[in-house]
């Protein structure tokens, strides 16, 4: 039942995206969009099943979006500053790879989703790229272009 409900949700989402992008309900295009949406929903569920892992997102995680946006803007200015310094004859950036503490959580769907989103969120900001996640050590290996590594605010979301 849960599987059918998930299929229905994805199908509605993909079909809605198609209708929004086309901009109208068309007697010829919309049914084709619905069929393709169904295929896309089936493909998504198949890939998730094949991965062997379940993911559960939480609405409260949207609270990190403002921090993420601020980080992208701040780090964009930072990396461009490093570039302009280099173009003006200065040295190359003092980049380094650092292990930062990260709360990896368990094997439940919520922790799986949070780990994936945290890796993406840290890699979002131009100054940092996640190279590896060490669950045993509870760390993320991150490459920073600017050697002045900022201290992450929390181990759950190390932005």
């Amino acid at each position, binding site marked *: 039942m849960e599987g059918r409900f998930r299929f229905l949700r994805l199908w509605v989402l993909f079909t809605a*995206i198609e209708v*929004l*992008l*086309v*901009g109208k309900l068309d007697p010829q295009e919309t049914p084709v969009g619905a069929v393709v949406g169904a295929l896309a929903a089936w493909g998504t569920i198949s890939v998730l099943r094949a991965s062997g892992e379940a993911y559960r997102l939480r609405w409260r995680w949207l609270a990190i979006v403002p921090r993420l946006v601020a980080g*992208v*803007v701040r*780090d*964009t200015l930072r*990396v*461009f500053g490093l*570039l*302009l310094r*280099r*173009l003006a004859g200065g040295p*190359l*950036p003092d*980049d380094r*790879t650092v292990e930062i503490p990260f709360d990896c959580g368990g094997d439940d769907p919520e922790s799986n989703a949070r780990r994936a989103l945290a*890796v*993406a*969120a*840290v*890699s*979002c*900001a*131009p*100054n940092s*790229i*996640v*190279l*590896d996640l060490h669950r045993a050590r509870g760390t993320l290996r991150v*490459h920073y*272009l600017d050697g002045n590594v900022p201290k992450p605010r929390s181990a759950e979301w190390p932005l």
Partner: protein
Amino acid sequence: MSAREAVIAALLLLAVVTVALSCTGVLVMRTPLQRLHYLGPLAMVAPVLIGIAVALAHGVYAGAGLKALFIALVLAAFAPVLSHQTGQLADARREP
């Protein structure tokens, strides 16, 4: 030139400067990992600026504005994944 056109021009100028600096960074930096950091602004900042400019020109509810913002969303959403995966490749191939 109306105020809206001026804002669109300013957004486009900002986007072009972002792209130019990002491409220069990709060329000028020494290692692949260093270059990779400049894909971030290219994939996340510039498309959003252009998407907003298109949405201002056509309106968000029109097809063009919505498509441009959707493209910006797709690029911004996948850019960190691209950085992470390519970073792992660059790290694995790094000279000791």
